């Protein structure tokens, strides 16, 4: 009945309907369960109430202030972290000495939980925005670096040789081979970085911020306004989806040669 799931086949509209139906089914079940009292309304407020709360927070402007703070930090961190990860990834990919020198350092720092480093940033940069953005940048840096580096390393030798044969040296090699050749992997890195930054942004706001989605979640928990907590979770989910589609768009725009739909018609 179902066709084999080839990576180059497009999803059918019908499949999209199924995902939507499942989502709504779960929400409807939750609503009924909460209203009927099968589950505690305090811990599982009905979705309709959460939506209402969300509306109230949007109306009062609190939602937009929070969203603004979180997105500001996220954007700055992603830009700085992913940008430097990209540059260093190209450099490490292209230069063997740099790669050998930095590889152990990257291997040691990468698995460290970023939040555990937050106190150090607080000492270095103070309790203002700088320390938060720096931590977010770090969260974006490693996925971007590691994916870009892998992307550069997996460029087929033939392309290096082809370029070298036509006389390409450093800068031309970077612009015409390294950069486009590693781009697919860099975009995977960007996607992971965006996710990572969102997670760390909420966490760091819960820890030490007065504003932002994370701060509001923490406040809602402490005052037991669970409907606000769920409302914020919904917003975070929406932000995640938006980031996903933005990255998708940027990917397509940057890599017209990688566009599978032209192949499949």
């Amino acid at each position, binding site marked *: 009945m179902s066709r084999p799931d080839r990576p180059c086949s497009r999803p059918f509209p019908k499949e999209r309907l199924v995902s939507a139906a499942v989502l709504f089914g779960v929400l409807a079940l939750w609503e009924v369960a909460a209203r009927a009292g099968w589950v505690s309304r305090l811990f599982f407020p009905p979705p309709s109430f959460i939506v209402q709360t969300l509306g109230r927070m949007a109306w009062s402007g609190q939602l937009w202030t929070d969203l603004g703070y979180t997105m500001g930090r996220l954007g700055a961190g992603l830009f700085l972290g992913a940008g430097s990860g990209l540059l260093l990834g190209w450099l490490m990919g292209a230069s063997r000495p740099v790669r050998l020198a930095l590889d152990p350092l990257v291997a040691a720092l990468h698995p460290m939980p970023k939040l555990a480093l937050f106190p150090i940033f607080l000492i270095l940069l103070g309790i203002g925005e700088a320390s938060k953005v720096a931590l977010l940048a770090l969260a974006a840096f490693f996925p971007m670096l590691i994916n870009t580096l892998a992307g550069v390393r997996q460029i087929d030798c033939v*392309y290096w*040789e082809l*370029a070298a*044969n036509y006389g390409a040296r450093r800068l*031309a090699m970077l612009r015409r081979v390294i950069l486009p050749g590693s781009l697919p992997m860099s975009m995977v890195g960007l996607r992971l970085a965006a996710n990572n930054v969102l997670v760390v942004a909420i966490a760091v706001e819960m820890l030490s911020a007065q504003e932002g989605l994370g701060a509001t979640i923490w406040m809602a928990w402490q005052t037991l306004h669970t409907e606000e907590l769920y409302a914020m979770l919904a917003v975070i989910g929406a932000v995640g989806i938006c980031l996903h589609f933005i990255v998708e768009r940027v990917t397509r725009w940057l890599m017209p*040669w990688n566009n599978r739909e032209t192949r499949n018609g």
Partner: protein
Amino acid sequence: MYNMMTNQATDLRVDSLSMRYSSPRGSVDALQGVSFHVAAGEFVALVGPSGCGKSTLLRIVAGLQSPDLGEIAFPGRQTAPKCRFVFQNHALFPWMTVRDNVAFGLEMDGMPGAERRALAGEQLAALGLADFMDHYPHELSGGMCQRAAIAQAFVTRPDVLLMDEPLRALDAQMRMVIQEDLLALWERTRPTVLYVTHDIEEALLLADRVLVMSGRPGRIREAVEVPFGRPRDLTGRNHQGIEELKWRIWKMLEQEVKQQLHMSRP
């Protein structure tokens, strides 16, 4: 300043090249004392049993790798000649349009954008690819890609052109069409050509001389002069004695292949 509109007549001399690949799994003598000479403007084909070091030889001439022993010389040249390599597959950058691919060599030579795009466009149009200039390689057929790769090399006006089985993946009709294009391009500027092929007939139809290599380690076993005049008839019908030559070369290769098989059997 770039000087690309002319190529210089360039002799190629290959002098006792030896090359051994070593790895933890054993070492392979790919080439042993390979010497030959290609005159300026000559089209030389290289045939030999699989694994005898043809690709290695070509890569060394192109400067993509260096030999253990021996040297490549271009007698009579003060400056390094422009050697261009046509790879068998992956010959185009997948991330550039066909036109940018063909203009790539010109770009590296420092030619301004508008000029090189125009020149690449002309070259592509001449090869019947006018409608595909702004496509990406994956949108083209194998034959079209190969034609574009040949255009990419020729458009830079190389002094020496090295081709490693450029038509291997193509069917017979496509192959003949591209052979014709290739010879026409070559006649225009007459670069010195070294052309690797496993197809004896192709070697005889295209080249002035065919170098037959021995099995591993590769040596030049014999040089066969091709007596046919130009322009060539690529069907081979008008060339007297082509069957004889084919037979002779085939016999040599058969012997080499058999020897190689025997050597690797216990």
